[in-house]
């Protein structure tokens, strides 16, 4: 069994070993091994030319990663907390995401931005956000988000080998989860059906997938409801087809999002599902966070975050106790 954060470290080790053009840099990633010790030991193993600490300069880190990526390097950078992506986004959005296309294919932009996201750790409103939706609307970017160690390993390796810029989000409440790693390649942008069921489709990402599975077990054993659970795994590309295929069987769709309703991935996904398969839909619902920043105080933060009980309650409510 491997911890989620060790799975990420293993993917970095494997890709640093396989390809000498891979670089790893960011704030406190090298000597200290990262604030969540994800990158511990990499500098010792690969040297300070390939694994190094940077100044606190998110725009320069990301912009330099872009410049390095178009000149033969494959940088994997870390933006310590997803909230700080706001400071890195110009380079990602206005350069990295555009260059392959705007240069008419003269260059690829093989860079990865790893960043820690998600609430529940009492870190307050600016160390908990999930910036995936901020960038979901940008053609040229991939924005992916594993929910378990195997996917963390497979998807990070795929991201480093990808020729387009990839934002790789790591939910901080998954770091200690354990699972088996496999060498099976993961295609970025594909969702995964993690539980089969015919009554309702529940879609989520990252921490929400585990919550949905817990809810689905309770629904099955206590309420006689069989939920299908889909791990979206990616904000962009968005695997609408896998969700549509599920909804065509269940007729009901619940999206569980750690984020606000307006402009969230759930709203966008439901819009696309409706556009493609309106006739299959009997019901759609969104379980998300309230329309304010995530608070620090434990009772406030707990109440703001959807958990397994909220998911189960919502399914029961929508299905009328079916």
């Amino acid at each position, binding site marked *: 069994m491997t911890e989620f954060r060790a799975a990420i470290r293993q993917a970095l080790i494997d890709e640093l070993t396989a390809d000498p053009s891979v670089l790893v840099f960011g704030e406190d990633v090298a000597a200290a091994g990262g604030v969540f010790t994800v990158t511990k030991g990499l500098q010792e193993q690969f040297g300070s030319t390939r694994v190094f600490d940077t100044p606190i300069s998110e725009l320069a880190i990301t912009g330099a990663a872009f410049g390095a990526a178009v000149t033969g390097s494959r940088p994997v950078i870390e933006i310590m907390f997803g909230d700080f992506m706001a400071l890195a986004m110009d380079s990602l959005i206005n350069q990295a995401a555009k260059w392959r296309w705007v240069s008419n294919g003269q260059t690829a932009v093989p860079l990865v931005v790893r960043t820690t996201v998600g609430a529940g750790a*009492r870190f307050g409103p*600016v160390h908990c956000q999930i910036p995936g939706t901020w960038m979901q609307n940008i053609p040229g970017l991939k924005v992916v988000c594993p929910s378990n160690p195997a996917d963390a390993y497979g998807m990070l390796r795929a991201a480093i080998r990808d020729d387009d810029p990839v934002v790789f989000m790591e939910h901080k409440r998954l770091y200690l989860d354990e699972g088996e790693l496999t060498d099976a390649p993961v295609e970025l942008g594909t969702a995964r059906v993690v539980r089969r069921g015919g009554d309702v489709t529940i879609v989520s990402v990252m921490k929400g997938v585990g919550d949905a599975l817990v809810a689905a077990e309770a629904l099955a054993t206590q309420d006689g409801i069989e939920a299908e659970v889909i791990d979206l795994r990616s904000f962009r590309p968005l695997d609408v087809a896998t969700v549509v295929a599920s909804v065509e069987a269940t007729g009901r769709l619940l999206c569980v999002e750690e984020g606000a309703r307006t402009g969230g991935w759930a709203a966008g996904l439901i819009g696309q599902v409706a556009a493609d398969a309106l006739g299959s839909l009997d019901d759609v619902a969104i379980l998300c966070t309230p329309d304010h920043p995530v608070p620090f105080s434990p*009772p*406030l933060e707990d109440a703001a975050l959807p958990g397994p009980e909220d998911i189960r309650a919502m399914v029961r409510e929508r299905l009328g106790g079916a």
Partner: protein
Amino acid sequence: MNTAGGAGESGVGADEMLAMLEQMTFIRRFEEEVQASFQRGEVPGTTHLCIGHEAIPVGLAAALGPDDVIATTYRGHGHVLARGADPAAVAAELTGRAMGLNGGRGGSMNLTDFAHGIIGSFGIIGGSMAAATGAGLSFRGTGRVAVATFGDGCANHGYFFECLNFAAVFRLPVLFICEHNLYGEYTPWEQVTAGADIAARARVFGIDATLVDGMDVRAVHRHAAAAVARLRTGEGPVFLECRTYRFVGHSRSDPATYRPPGELEEWQRRDPLIVARDALHDAGVPESVTGEAEGTARERVRQAFATALASPFPEPAVTR
């Protein structure tokens, strides 16, 4: 500016100096209690203590007037207390209580108290510089002053250069205070910062910039008071690089193993509390008097945390 004699060349009188010692002692004991409460699980999440930095908030606060504002960082508990925020409300915010400065919404990294001129504590590096720069826009021609505090690590951020230039070209009444403690998280500053000092970076914008002994509250106060006097006349921004040291880890339970052996002990010899106490003794104030700061501080801290911990958590009102 205070010109009364008494506690040596600094121009700070013995009474004022004693008050500053009391404040620093209070902040020190408060921060120690934050750490103890964190370890007991009463302070959730994370905390960044200002132990070792106390001379900066205290020397600065004594130079400011009630209409001046400050924007500080996640390491700003000392500034918030020194400006006069209710210690129980600070403790309550750190412990997530409804009576907290921010009603429990912000926690340690976001202490905000407009009533005491604290327009925010910023968890994003550089945010404080921009907020104070903007406050400087509002204060043009009023005699009011806006202060930004930030760390040495911030000096490599885009915010740093953009705000210094912005404040300089518009001659804004902003006092930029760099609390240079030699480390940004776990990384020694010289590994990631070009040039010999940070003040030099401000000078290229034509900003008056001085290196200050941040362990000596007299020095901080003297430079801050001179800067504030100058800022009130509308002469444009001032930059103080205060050299200091944090006696504890960056946050939570960071054991600070990245420090070279002996470095901490060397700085602790210049502990701002000791420097102030020695100065008072040299000026003839007896130990029986300086010693009182200790008991007063402990009692205030005890009361603040007792009040906070006895108070209720906020009621969630969730509408999804």
